[in-house]
Every structure is written in C-alpha cells, then in structure tokens.
C-alpha cells in the first residue's frame, strides 16, 4: 500500500529518488545479529508458553554462530577482493571491520552460554535478556563497520541503550537498578557531548563522512581551527567514556559491580571492542593528519588510566569492582596502541581486544558461578578455599587472572608486549615504562585473588592484614559487627565489612559450599581458557590475523 503511494507520488512529481545501492554482504553479520534479536522477540511473543530460557539461548547461540560464519565468509571475501566502502560511503567493509565483527560475535556466543545458567539460577524468565544482548552486540558491530561519524553514533547508541537495560536486568538486586541509573545518566551525558563533537567537526570540515573528512584535512591547512579541535576533544571524551578511560571512567566501577555478572563481561568485551574500533578508525585514519593535536591527549589519558586503574584496583574488596579497575588499566594499555597510531600500534590494539575479550568473559563466567544465588558473593572471601573445593574451576580462574596480569605463555602476555613494543617504536618511552610499571602493580591484585583461592576458608591471613586498618574507615563497611562471620585474630569488624554489602546473610557463611557450574558455562570457560593458553603458546595465527586486518584498513 505504502509502496504504491510512494510510486504514485514519485510519478506525480516526475523526479526519481536515488536510494543508495546497498551491499548486503558488507553488513551481513550485523543484519544476522539484529535479525536474530527480532526473530527471538517475535517467536517468544507468539509462543510464550513453550519458549523458555533454554530455547532463547539456543536461538542466540545459533545466531551468534551464524554471525561468526558470515563474518568469516566476509573475511575470506575481503582478503581476496580487497577492502571497499559501501552504502553511500557510510559503511567500511575491510579487514578491520570484519575483525571486530568476529570478536563481537564470539563475545556474544560466550555470553549467551554463560547467561543461560545465570538466568535459570536467578529465575529470570523470558527472552528479553538475549534479545537485548544481541541488539547491543549488533551496535558494537556497527561501530566497527561505521565509516561515518553519525553511523558511529548510531552504533554507539544501539550498543549503549541495550546495555542500560541489561544493567538493570536483575531487579531483585538494588545495585542493579542503581548501576543502570548511573550508567544511563552518565551515558546520555557523554552521548550528548559526543554528538556536539560531531556537530563541531561537521561544521569545521563540512562532512560527517570519515573519508571526506580525511580528504578535506589533507587538502586544507586547518592547524589552528578552534572549532575542529574542540570537536576532536569532545569526540575523544565520548570515546573515553565508552572505553572507561580516566577521567571519564567513574561510572565503570559502580556499573560493573551492580550489573548482572554476565552483562558485565559482555559490557567489558563488546563496549571496548566497538568503541576502540571506532576510536582507531576516526583518529588514526581520518584525523591522522592532526595527530600532533590529539596524540598528547591520548598519551595523558593512557597514563592516567594505567595508573589509576592499577592503584585503585589494589584496594578493592569486591571482585567485580576490582575487575572494573582492571578493565580501566587494560584500556590504558590498548590506548598505547592508539597513541602509537602506526600499523603496528593498530594491530597491537586489535590483538589486545581479541585476547581481552576471551579473558574478561571467561573471568566473569567464573565470577557468575561463584556469586551463587542472588548474584551477591563477590567478595574476596567468597573465593577462599575454592582451590580445594573445585580445583578445576580455580585453576581456570587462576589462568584467566594470570593472563590478565600478562603472564608469559598466555595471550595476555603478548597483548601487553605488542602494545608496549608499538609505543617504544614511536619513542614513547615514558609511556612504555609507566605501562610496564602499572602491569607490575596490577599483577599484585590479580595474584591476591589467586592467593585467596588457594588459602583455606576462615583463615584471615595476609589479605585482611593488608587493609584491615583502612577498612573500618573505608566507605563500604555498611554491615554491623553483629552479623560478622566466623573469624580469627579479632578482626571481626574488618571481616564483616568485607562480606556484606546488602541485606541477606553474610556470604562467607555459605562460602564453603560447592558452587554449581552449569554445563554451558563450563563450555564458555573452557573455550576462554583454551584460547588464552593455546594462542598464548602459539600466538602466530592471531597476531597474523590482527596484522592482516590492519593492513586491510581502508
């Protein structure tokens, strides 16, 4: 009906509307991912009775695998036919974008596996979780492919809006709502800043299309254009917020802590992947000529992120908060590659994103199962004795943590090594030195968890000794000594404040029980650990992959 009207209208005016040619192959993975979400939400509203969490997981996993297959097909296509720009210049179809599609698709696959057990355990029905996760994944993928500032913005919003809702998903937990609110208010704020940045860049260069901007900048000397530089700064703020770089990181500890654990893993992996992809594309390729203007800023942000992330993580008691600061630290590392703005830097960043995706999702898979019913057991004390109770789970977690710390023979080591090498390559020695020093500090807090896992339940030992003094003064001690768990050394207050954040029994009272690891979660953890170890020992294929992806950058 509407097409008919449309045809009549165009016939009446005698003018043809030129719609751009749409190369569906170039956005196939995004379409599959979004299509999966739409299919799932439709199917579940039609067959409400028969669709449980299990079938939603099934469809999501299927969609993620289909996306992955499509992306791999794209990779093959790009390698043989070369990179190009499609859909009226708004989508880049190159190795770089395909790389991000692959990373996000795998992240989605792993998250769906983990979420299945989580949703069943927490008694959260319905397919909405999976639908939102797929939508946000498609947003991250769109950011990776976007070749126009406004498309980046669209991707960013698709990614973020779905994540806001996901953060609020566990309505039984007060933290979940608070996390969503904080994330939303600050996210909307940063989006507004980002859009204003786009407006300024548009005003200064006359286009929001990245190649056209690059073209304009190469033909005109705009060194002292205040509007353009202000726009650049605001774009950096928007990206800085998404990747949780200091000082735009403040949301991340609260949001990481409050969100349901599988969501946190997804958020850490795909928000970073999408935002870094766009950041690299915008700054390294389009604003490459202005690198003298933005490189010092990235330099400073990287240093702040490295230092603040490592130091603040050290004093955390909640493992999800600790992982949030750890992810800030990781963002600092990836920024090393951005700051280098060389082929080597870009491929190092891509490799880092790939490796980090597996490490962080695997880590949050373990955190999800250890947290037990109610998703509340996130204190270090909850990890005590895990090595004895469930040695394989503890071993997997230890591997993932050590990988994040950058231990050799894991992907984490080479990830850190390549970005630092890229920084050294362009003589950013100070940055490289600070990065390595922060890695040393960071190793300490990762090891603290490992030590906790392999020390017996009940023994307070070194961990509490370390900060027993500060804890009483610390702001998170909301529990009264009355509900203190069993403890020794007369440090009841300290231990009590460690163990409880909300209502409910002290978590360490149940800490010596086995936690159930659902089968699908086991698969996800196994894949993460396997990838981390195997490609830590044989890094060649993935490094080559990241390098190729960079060379096929438009």
């Amino acid at each position, binding site marked *: 009906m509407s097409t008919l009207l449309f045809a009549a209208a165009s016939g009446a005016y005698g003018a043809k509307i030129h719609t751009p040619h749409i190369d569906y192959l170039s956005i196939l993975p995004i379409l599959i991912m979004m299509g999966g979400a739409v299919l799932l939400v439709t199917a579940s509203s039609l067959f409400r009775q028969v669709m449980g969490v299990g079938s939603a997981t099934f469809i999501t996993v299927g969609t993620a695998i289909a996306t992955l297959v499509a992306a791999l097909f794209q990779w093959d296509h790009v390698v043989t036919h070369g990179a190009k720009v499609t859909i009226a210049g708004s989508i880049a179809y190159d190795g770089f974008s395909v790389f991000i599609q692959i990373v996000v698709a795998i992240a989605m696959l792993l998250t769906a596996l983990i979420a299945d057990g989580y949703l069943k355990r927490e008694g959260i029905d319905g397919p909405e979780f999976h639908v939102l996760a797929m939508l946000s994944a498609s947003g991250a993928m769109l950011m990776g492919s976007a070749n126009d500032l406004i498309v980046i913005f669209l991707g960013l919003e698709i990614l973020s809006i779905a994540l806001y809702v996901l953060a609020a998903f566990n309505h039984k937990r007060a933290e979940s709502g608070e996390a969503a609110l*904080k994330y939303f208010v*600050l996210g909307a704020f940063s989006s507004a800043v980002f859009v204003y940045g786009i407006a300024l860049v548009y005003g200064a260069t006359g286009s929001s299309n990245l190649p056209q901007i690059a073209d304009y900048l190469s033909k005109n000397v705009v060194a*002292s*254009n205040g509007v353009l530089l202000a726009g650049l700064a*605001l774009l*950096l703020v928007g990206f800085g917020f998404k990747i949780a770089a200091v000082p735009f990181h*403040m949301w991340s500890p*609260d949001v990481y802590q409050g969100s349901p654990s599988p969501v946190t893993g997804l958020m850490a992996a795909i928000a970073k992947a999408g935002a870094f992809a766009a950041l690299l594309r915008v700054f390294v390729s389009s604003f490459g000529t202005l690198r003298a203007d933005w490189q010092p*800023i990235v330099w400073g942000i990287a240093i702040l992120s490295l230092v603040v992330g490592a130091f603040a993580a050290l004093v955390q008691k909640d493992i999800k908060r600790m992982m949030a600061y750890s992810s800030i630290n990781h963002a600092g590392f990836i920024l090393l590659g951005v700051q280098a703005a060389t082929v080597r830097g870009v491929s190092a960043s891509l490799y880092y994103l790939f490796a980090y995706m597996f490490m962080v999702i695997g880590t949050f898979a373990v955190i999800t199962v250890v947290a037990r019913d109610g998703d509340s057991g996130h204190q270090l004390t909850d990890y005590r004795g895990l090595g004895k109770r469930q040695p394989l789970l503890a071993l997997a977690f230890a591997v993932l943590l050590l990988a994040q710390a950058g231990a050799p023979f894991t992907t984490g080591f080479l990830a850190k090594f390549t970005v630092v090498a890229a920084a050294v390559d362009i003589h950013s020695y100070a940055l490289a030195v600070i990065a390595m020093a922060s890695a040393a500090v960071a190793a300490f807090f990762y090891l603290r968890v490992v030590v906790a896992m392999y020390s017996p339940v009940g023994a307070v030992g070194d961990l509490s000794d370390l900060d027993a003094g500060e804890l009483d003064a610390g702001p998170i001690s909301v529990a009264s000594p009355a509900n203190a768990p069993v403890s020794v050394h007369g440090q009841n207050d300290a231990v009590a404040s460690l163990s409880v954040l909300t209502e409910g029994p002290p978590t360490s009272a149940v800490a010596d029980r086995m936690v159930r690891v659902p089968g699908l979660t086991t698969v996800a953890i196994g894949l993460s650990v396997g990838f981390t170890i195997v490609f830590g020992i044989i*890094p060649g294929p993935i490094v080559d992959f990241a390098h190729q992806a960079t060379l096929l950058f438009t």
Partner: protein
Amino acid sequence: MLHLTYLIILLPLVGFAVQVLFGRRLGDPVAGAVATIFVGASFIVSVGVFFDLLAVHGAVRSFTQNLWTWIPVGGMQIHAGLYVDPLSMTMVLFVTGISALIHLYSIGYMKGDRDYPKFFLYLNLFVASMLILVLGNNLLVTYVGWEGVGTCSYLLVAFWFTRETAAVAGKKAFIYNRIGDAGFIAAAFLTFDKVGSLDYSVIFANVGKIGTANITAICLLLMVGVAAKSAQIPLFPWLADAMEGPTPVSALIHAATMVTAGVYLLCRVNPLLHASPDAAWIVALIGAATAFVAATIACAQNDIKKVLAYSTVSQLGYMVLAIGAGAYEAAIFLMVAHAFFKGLLFLGSGSVIHGLHDEQDLKRMGNLRVYMPITFVTFGIGWLAIAGVPPLSGFWAKGDVLDNAWAAHPALWVVGIFTALLTAYYMSRLSGLAFFGQDRWKNKVAVGADADMPDAHHAAGPIPEPHESKWVMTLPLIVLAVLAAAGGVMAFATPHLSLARWVDPVFSGSLYNDHETTSTIWKLSTLDAVVAVIGVFIGLRLWITRADRPKLEWAFLRQSWYFNEIFDAIIGRPGARLAQFTSTVIEDKVIDGAVDGTGALVRRTGMALRRVQTGYVRNYALWIVVGIVALFAFMLTRTWWA
C-alpha cells in the same frame, strides 16, 4: 614421511602427557612399558624420515618444517621450525634408538622404585627436549631444548633426592649448566643484534656481514654453553657428581645424548667456527686439555660410575678437539660410536651394581665374569671398543679424530695419543678389578677402604652371590654390544654406507683427512692399535693380580686435580660471604624497606582514589566535565601555538 617430522618430538611429548595424567594409575611396570612404546614409535618414525631424506638427492639434502610462527613481533619473526638434514638426522636416529633401549632397560632397573612412574615421566620429557634441541631450526628453539634437557638432567640426577648427596649433585649440575646457558643466550642476543634473525639458514647466509671479531665472540660465548653442557674444562666437575642419578640416567643423559648436545651445537654452527680460526683453536685446545685431564683422573677413581664419568668427559674432550681441528665428521663419528659403547658400559655397570646390591666400589668387586657372563661379554666389547682395539668401533672413531689432530697440529696429536694410552689403561683397570681376580665382594669392606675415598656408594650390608640380570636389562646390552662392535662400518668409504659422505654436505667438505697420504694414515692407524693393546696389557697386568696399588692412585688424581676445591676457594666461599651480606644488609634494610615503602605508597594512593569515587552521579559527571575542560585547555594551547 618428511612432513611427519614433528611426530618425532610429539610422540615422546604425548608419552610425557600420558605419564602425567595416568602414570600413577598405570604403575609398575605398565608405565615403563608405555613410555618405552612411545619412544620406540618415535624411533620408527625417525627411521622413516631418514629413508625419505636418503631419497632426496642433490647438494641440499635438507628439509625445513615450519610448525607455526612462534614470536611474531615486528622485525623479530621467530618460527617454531624444525630442520632436518644429515647432521640432525644422525643425532635423531641415535638419540631415539638409544633412548628406546634405555627405556626398556629401565623397566627392569627401576623395578620396585617408589617413584617408578615419575622416572619415566622425566625420561620421556627428556627425550622430547633433546629432540627439540636437535631438530630446532633456529637458536631459540634449540635453546628451549637446551633448557629442557638441563631441567630434566637436574630432576633425574636428584631423582633420589632424599639422599643428601643426590640432592646436592642435582643442584651442582643445574648451577654449572646455568652458567653455560648464560653463555648460550648471550651468544643468541649477539647473533640477533648482528644478523637480525636467529634462523640458522639466515645466520649462515650472512656470516660475511657479521665481522670476524663478532664471530669469535659468538663462538666463544657458545663455547661457554658447550663447556657446561658437554663437561669441558673448566666446567666439567658436575658430571662426576651427576652419577648420583640412577644408572640408566647416567647412560642416557650423561653419556650418550645430553652431554653430546654441546658437540652437536658446535657442529651445527660450523660455518661460524669456520670463519673464526682463533675460536677454533681455543676450542681445540680446550678439548685436548679436557681429554687429557679427565683421562688422568679416571685412572685413580674407585667408584665404577665415576671412572666411566671421567672417561665420558675425556671422550667428549676428543670430540671437541676434533671440532676445533675442523674435523666435524670425525667428531660426529666418535659421538655416535661413543653413544654406543659408553651407553653399553654404563648399562653394563648398572647390571653389575644391580647384581651386587648397589655396590659401586671397584675394590669390592672381582671375578664377576663367572657370575654374570652376559654382562661380562657385552661389557668386555664396550671396554675393548673404547680402548681402541681393532676392529671395534672405537678404533675407527678415535683413529679418525687422531689422524685429524695430526693434520691440524702434531702437538694435539701427541696429547691425543697419550690420552688414548691412558684410556686403554684405566678401562682395563676397571675391567680387571670388576671381572677378574678374587671374589672380593665376599669381604666385609673394600680393599683400602680406610683411605680417603670420597663418594663411592656401597651396598647396605653383606653382598649375597651376584646374579645375572633379567632379559629387559640384558637385551639392550646385547644390542648395544653389537652396535659398539660393528660401529666401525660407518667409516668405510663406500658411497652409500659412509657416515662421512652422509654428513659431508652439512660441512661443505673441509676435512683435513683429504690432505693426508694413505701411507701416513696407515702408519698412524697402526700406532693407534699398538698403543691400545699396550694400554690394555698394562692395565690388566697390574690390576688383576692386586687390587691395592696406592702408588698408582695419587690423591691429586683421586681428588680430580682439586678442581672442586679451587672453585670452592675462588667462587664458593666469597660467594657465601656475599650472600650473607646480601641477606642481612641488602635484603633486610634496603629491599624490605623499599618494598614496604612502595607498598604503603601504593595503598595510600589507592585509598585516595577510593575517596574520589564518592558514589554520587553528579560527582562522576563533574569529573567528565573536568576532563572536557582540561582537553579544551590543551586544544587552546594548540591553537595559540599554531
């Protein structure tokens, strides 16, 4: 089958994994059998690869298998690659073959040991490491194997770690080897700095660009590694102590395979040595000195395994001497022959020790030929082979080395021929004491046991009548005896059988042998044979009749030229003092202070950051705004500046 080369390494590794996962469950003797099967399979694959390589004709008879890119960082592209050529193939064949035999032997020898599966676990890991060392196509892969065999050597020497001496010997072996590893890795760094690659093929293609001084430095640094691994002066004392390990370990690691890794490495880098005559001369001198010194020490030892250990050091000295003289092919010939006869001698001594309930003192043996006939015959072949009596393998191999030494410099030959005399003598002394003479094992104590006799191990109580060992132990003896006897056929220069022709392409044919006349070779060979027979005659004549001849066992020789004492005085004691100083002053005051201070600083910073994180949304937004303002301020300076 060339493309299956990786299986040669993978099979022992899988064996290792099987032992790790199921070793305890398999137990004694299945664990040993499984380990043996994996190594045997590796040998079979090696034979297949060997015939395939044989089928490749032409000047470049080699094959490189790149498994994966191991460390791809910018300009540094290090592949996990394997390199098969006549040299590495020769090593692979005898390493896997002898390993399989010794695994088989160990099934019997280690029977009843508390840690039976663990022994085979280490042994399999050792074989895999050794094969990585041999097959690596660049210095780093070789280094991985180099470290791997060092680690396994440590673990196996200290296998009976509850014995104080074994634990100490393990540490000693490890520390000496670490010194060598430092030399190796420094050489690798220097090479990478000059060439930009660690691949052998690239290094050798660029020899001309490195510069003679650098090549000499690289060779000498490598020689440090070789001196430690192959027990050359001055880093040889660990090998004697390493005899604390179980006898199959001594046979496999400390006679046949690992200690020859240094010799192999020098052969591998022959283009470098070729380009640096100075380094080659130093190598030759070290080899000659080691051969002589170790042979003299072997003349005065009472522990049967110590005699064999110093004999090994001496023979390794011959090999290094040959390499220094440019006679790589002779070195490899001796290495292979030595693997046969020394492996045989060690296994034979193990059989003797086993039969005498862990008695290792020669002075408490005697007349064993009556009780252990198979051991005696096979051991006898090994004895005559190493002594250089024709037509056994040792005569040909050692003769080859000596001929080349003659061609290089007559002085080297003089040392060599005198050492050959000593070799024949001390081996005959050993055989005379063990297999001939009186039944001294009936005595309560050894002859002259009150004399200072540091380390010989003794049986716990009175020794019952000795007995021959079981087939799993005698079969490897017989096989090795055949090889030790007939190994000389490798020398015959028919185009298809000659070892020299086979490995010649690796060394681009730079043999001194070529420059000598047939009559000289005949004269030298005759002299070798005569010297060997004289040595055997003297040794037997002296030691069959009497077991105590203190005049022939100088304390100076018994104490290994006081090398251990010298090291203790110049390194050990000052080192202990330094360690004392470090632990009391540096550790307690400086380091602990710094660590505590840093810790406090870090914690305080962390706590400050926590206070900034107030939990209020507007505060968070404020920080974003602060960030924006800071960025604007920076951009403003950029516009002003421009």
